[in-house]
């Protein structure tokens, strides 16, 4: 069955978000900004003023560092854009969403259904995953214009807050919905049935590691 394809605004209505189903393919239009650990720490821990009007300008937070440069005349060249793994940002996301009204968190690999249920759903937000990973060139084609780069001096090109105008940027896959269900966990559950068969005949390593036992009074032999 071919997945459903949907055009979505980066300032989506609650109805448009409610429409989204796990596994739908989404293309985005409007302003999107990149924010990852550098931006989160600066905005939330150091309490710096966020240099955009959020969420009125954009409700789409991309976990991304683009392959881009700032030209001597101050203009920008953006080649490829792809996401970085989002689970590492769970520490900051609840506060970030509350503060910025972000409705679309876009990244790699999604979050857990626990994250979705505890702060995505209450904020009316969903998670969109990039595809591949690494459809960087296709996503790059969806960049109509680079509007600004903020905090480049403080954070460097990779961690800076890039503001991108998107035109049919995609594909992205809907990885969470307003029930707080998680596409990746659904797939994991299907694969889990097969694990015992694949592992048949193998045996645990002679030397264990902490992590396999979380009791540090245990030995690893």
């Amino acid at each position, binding site marked *: 069955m071919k997945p459903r394809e949907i055009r979505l605004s980066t300032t989506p209505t609650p109805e448009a978000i409610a429409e989204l189903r796990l596994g739908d393919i989404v293309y985005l239009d409007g302003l999107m900004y990149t924010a990852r650990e550098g931006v989160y720490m600066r905005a939330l821990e150091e309490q710096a003023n966020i240099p955009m009007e959020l969420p009125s300008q954009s409700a789409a937070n991309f976990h991304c560092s683009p392959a881009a440069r700032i030209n001597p005349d101050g203009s920008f060249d953006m080649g490829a854009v792809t996401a970085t793994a989002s689970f590492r940002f769970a520490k900051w996301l609840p506060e970030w969403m509350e503060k910025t009204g972000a409705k679309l968190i876009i990244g790699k690999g999604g979050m857990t259904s626990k994250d979705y249920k505890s702060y995505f759903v209450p904020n009316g937000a969903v998670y969109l995953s990039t595809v591949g990973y690494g459809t960087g060139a296709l996503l790059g084609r969806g960049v109509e214009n680079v509007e600004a780069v903020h905090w480049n001096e403080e954070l460097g090109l990779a961690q800076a807050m890039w503001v991108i105008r998107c035109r049919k940027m995609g594909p992205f896959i809907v990885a969470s919905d307003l029930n707080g269900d998680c596409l990746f966990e659904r797939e994991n559950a*299907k694969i889990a049935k097969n694990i015992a068969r694949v592992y048949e005949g193998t045996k645990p*390593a002679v030397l264990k590691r902490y992590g396999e036992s979380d009791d540090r009074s245990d030995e690893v032999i």
Partner: protein
Amino acid sequence: MIPIDLIQKTAESLMDKAAIEIPEDYLDGLQKAAETEDGDLSSFVLKAMLDNYEAAKEDRRAMCGDTGVPRWFVKLGNDATVEGGMCALETALRRATAIATNGVPLRPNRVHPLWRTDHNNNVGIGAPEIEYGFEPEGDWIDLITVHKGGLFGTDYRMLFPSDGVQGIKRFYLDSLMAFGKRGLACQPAIIGIGLGGSKDICMTLGKRASVLRIVGSRNSDPRIAEMEDEFKELGNSIGMGAMGFVGKNMVIDCNIEVGYCHTGGMPMSVHAFCLSSRRAVARIYPDGRVEHRTDPDWFTPYQRRETVEWEPMQEAAE
């Protein structure tokens, strides 16, 4: 003597090629995977990736926004000399890395591990890595650049002879399960396995198995070659495909490299070279000829030699 300007110019073009053009062997492997894939979502993903390679080439833009961490493998024929010496060569490679980071552009991924200082050019302490190999004949130099993703898909474990092949299988599967879920390893990937060596060399062997051998190559030891086939099939029988969705294609190929290790141990490493398997190779001759190719051809009989002396004629006769 090989002109230093030619080395830098060639290195710059290799940086560009690696970032933009998917190597033919990996592309063929992925096309075959796309034909056999029947999971709805993973099929969609593989098709999108194939479109992406086209778009990258057409627009001359990097195929992935995370352009990895550029590094260099340099191989010299025994008679090769470089204008200005080996320090000039290293400077040329550092310059090419910085220039291409701004030129392509690539993402300036390299930062100080503690202070997160970013020179915005992928150059810093120990970056890019430059590793060397030698061949007994030739006056050429091979430049190989690899821009591997840096975060997921790699692991190391000290196994022991009593763990046996079943223990190797288990750690291999554990690595695929751990990093394959949600597609963290950006599979289907070229999986490299390093067996033996000391701990650091074990990692190096596995990394080189994934990035310096092409899809379809096989280890020269027929029993290891058999394991490579078996492990490829095992990885693809998990039922996990691209992005961790239900599917048949996790491993585009599995390459194993070995090195002699401590008699009591059997260290093992696993590496995943992702959907953007960025590598580019060129051989430069003293007369100014430059030959581009995509096969690093790193693991020659000389690199895998077991004996004290190197006697190629005798080897060939056997």
